[in-house]
């Protein structure tokens, strides 16, 4: 693959199950190089972008992401993120970032107490992160969710900070972009579907861009998140 293209590291925890899906997007669809990084490794193999994929790390026993955050690889990921490296947590990966304190807040079990797998709509609230810069601000995107614990919440002061520091990246909405209760698949506070840290380089979301990245699957919009990362790293 062309040298200009960034290198992806896809972290594999015991119980991750979307690692290969993310690898497929990075390599087959974007033509980038990607390495799997086993949770006990501490070497990101020179990665430019780190992805924490979906799944059930450690079975999500106890709490989603709770046991995974102690994996040795997380120290390296933390250092990478603190140095400004782009880190994307998808679904279970997002939950791990929350448990690890790399992103603020927590998720509870879905309002309906059931796992929910279906397409939802989200409004892009922050189009300036390395993973959303190719979207338009306010753009409505359709992506699948697949989770049982995606009911995001945080202490009031954290929520206020997220609101004012552009920490909210995606909000569940209806097709027309209105944030409504019906459009919210899990009861997340303020319809929050995805957030970023203050610097914007760490992004986590419950929906699955990796599941809507090619036409064959009927939806390509998720691919833009990966392409955003590539473009954000492209030598200007």
């Amino acid at each position, binding site marked *: 693959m062309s040298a200009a293209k960034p290198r992806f590291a896809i972290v594999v925890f*015991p119980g991750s199950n979307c690692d290969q899906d993310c690898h497929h997007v990075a390599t087959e669809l974007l033509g980038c190089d990607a390495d799997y990084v086993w949770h006990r490794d501490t070497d990101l193999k020179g990665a430019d972008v780190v992805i924490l994929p*979906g799944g059930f790390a*450690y079975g999500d026993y106890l709490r989603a992401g709770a046991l995974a955050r102690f994996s040795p690889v997380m120290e390296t990921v933390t250092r990478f993120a603190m140095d400004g490296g782009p880190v994307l947590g998808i679904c279970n990966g997002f939950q791990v970032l929350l448990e690890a304190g790399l992103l603020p807040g927590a998720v509870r079990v879905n309002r309906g*107490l059931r*796992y929910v*797998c279906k397409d939802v709509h989200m409004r892009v609230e922050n189009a300036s992160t390395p993973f959303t810069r190719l979207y338009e601000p306010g753009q409505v995107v359709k992506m699948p969710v697949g989770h*049982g614990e995606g009911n995001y919440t945080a202490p009031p002061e954290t929520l206020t900070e997220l609101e004012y520091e552009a920490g909210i990246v995606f909000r569940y909405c209806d097709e027309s972009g209105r944030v409504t209760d019906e459009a919210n698949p899990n009861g997340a506070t303020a319809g929050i579907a995805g957030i970023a840290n203050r610097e914007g380089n760490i992004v986590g979301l419950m929906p699955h861009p990796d599941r809507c990245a*090619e036409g064959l*699957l*009927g939806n390509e919009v998720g691919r833009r998140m990966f392409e955003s990362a590539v473009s954000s790293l492209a030598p200007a």
Partner: protein
Amino acid sequence: MTSGAHTRDLIAEHNLSAEEFARILEILGREPNLVELGVFSAMWSEHCSYKSSRIHLKKLPTTGPRVIQGPGENAGIVDIGDGLAVAFKMESHNHPSFIEPYQGAATGVGGILRDIFTMGARPIASLDSLRFGHLDAPRMRHLVDGVVRGIAGYGNCMGIPTVGGETTFHPAYDRNILVNVMSVGVVPSHRIFRGRAEGAGNPVIYVGSKTGRDGIHGATMASEEFAGDETRRKRPTVQVGDPFTEKLLMEACLELFELDAVVGIQDMGAAGLTSSSFEMAGRAGSGLEIDLSKVPVRETGMTPYEILLSESQERMLLVARKDRLDTVLEVFGKWELEAVVIGRVTDSGRVVAFFDGRIVADLPVAPLSERAPVYDRPRVPPTPVLSRGWEELPEPASYGACLRKILATENIAQKSWIWTQYDHMVGTNTVERPGGDAAVLRIKGTSKAMALTSDVNPFFCACDPYRGAAIAVAEAARSIAATGARPLAVTDCLNFGSPERPEIMGQFEAAVRGLSDACRALSTPVVSGNVSFYNETDGRPIPPTPTVGMVGLLEDVSRQVRMPFRREGDRVALLGRTRDELGASEFLRTIHGRDDGPCPDVDLEAERRLVELLVRLADERRIASAHDVSDGGLAVALAECAMASGLGVEVRLEPGVRPSALLFGETTGRALVTFAPGDESSVRAAAETADVPLDVIGRVGAGRLAIEMAGRALVDEPVAELSDIWTTAFARSMEESAEVL
């Protein structure tokens, strides 16, 4: 452990007949000890030995140009080209699911997934075929909720999408629900593994969860007399699934399979360590020596009897090349799995089990596995249920009202409440999600896709097991062909009452004949399957339920055809002829509350021609959509295409059969296709060449479902309203109940 003659009770408690016990004495030339008695009991149980079904299953067609592995292994395998093959099988977990729906269904998924990855295949999808009683029967919503949560809990965690299935409700399942799960995997055709213990001297390795006192079944009572009160108090009847451990097992095994270190492998399913060791030695014609003291146990004081017969989940037995043992232990170590060498392969033709240095069982392999008893049980042929006079019923006042009512019944209503609880997208191969005729999964690295479905109509089978079974195969093939895929092969799960009753064996024999004839006619050999007898309570059996799982191959995924109407103005054509049939239909049940027969007729040659035509039309890109006509009849099929697309349809039907049969009859051998007006002549020509009747019955329109016959409007309903009824009815019915959280 035991001395002298076994009491009659002890033998009976092990579900062994006097004749079977005599046979044991003859095989051994001595009294078996208690452990050995337990082993015979397990290996000769209906579940492990197929002793009542074998002679009938022999009649199924099991070979074909694409068949790489037929029945007898953990799963069947067919070739799909490009150096790839698909492994698939269906399994039942009926009884455990009735006792504890969540764990019963969850461990059912775990079991079938192990069957797939032990063949070397990476599972790509599962389907669940569910039968419940009347929703208002005691515990029924609790059972539905628990089963669905259990399948979701296990499958989602494993990361194997559940992409399809079926759900039927029938009062005859009130006290015997059925949970059948089918799994499908992809394997390089040159790297298939089998359950064979080959190579004397090779190490036998136990890997996975520790062994507990889970699910030590039939023989439980007997063993307790020896294991003592402690055990009786402690032994749980229900096995709890641990999908996380199984996920690690799967990844570890798949990694290991690349390293040329594994000789044979098998999961420890029913009868656990006993069946896996005897079957592995049996298939290879070898022998085994195993030391039960080395088996990792979860509880203290476990007896050899318990260790051999435990059904703890997430355990595998494998034979490694002696020179590669380190590699094997290394890989399992990486995945943090407990792997222990518990014995070695011999050429003695016997399985010898040690415990604390003593021999606790020493048995010949063949009589227990390959040459287990086989029975030709007495049977009386089923008497088909015929019409009780539905022909005399007056035609309903409003067909539209009938349609609304039928769309809201639990059998016809959309099952999205179920499949949205399943991760049906993980793996990013799901091209056609639940809701279509068959699920379609692309095969990465090729242009191909697999079409998967499971079908059987128990109402048909209750009227006529032979036809019901044949129609199940035909409907499956039609559902597959409607996506443009070519039906390849079949797995089955034959759910019946007690084989000790001649009526039941009569049903079984008829159903197997139906499967055989249909699978021959459609060139879809049966490569794997499962039999579940004794699905009855207080002498009330379930209806014969031969669930058919079918896989089809789409050579070019870009030629896939979908169910929803595509464009306003497209022509709508019905393939096949509608007969004056209402027997066993949803219409009779819902509108008239009757379960008259007869089961609709089936013409297997016509079904084959229809399948050929559908595949050809898709391959030549001549059609815009296709849908097979089944449950609920033509009106429901039209409604499904409309609701799925938001488009409407205007239909003119020729008189001939009574309107109710025209709209709601479940005549087999029919499908709906749509195409651009410009393609009509070529589609007609193709149908003529294929010798399939084709009638252009209408055109895709805007918002309404309008059906008229000879100038008379039969149905005229807004699609949006029908859709609202159909999509919400089932969820509402489930969530209003207090049994469901």
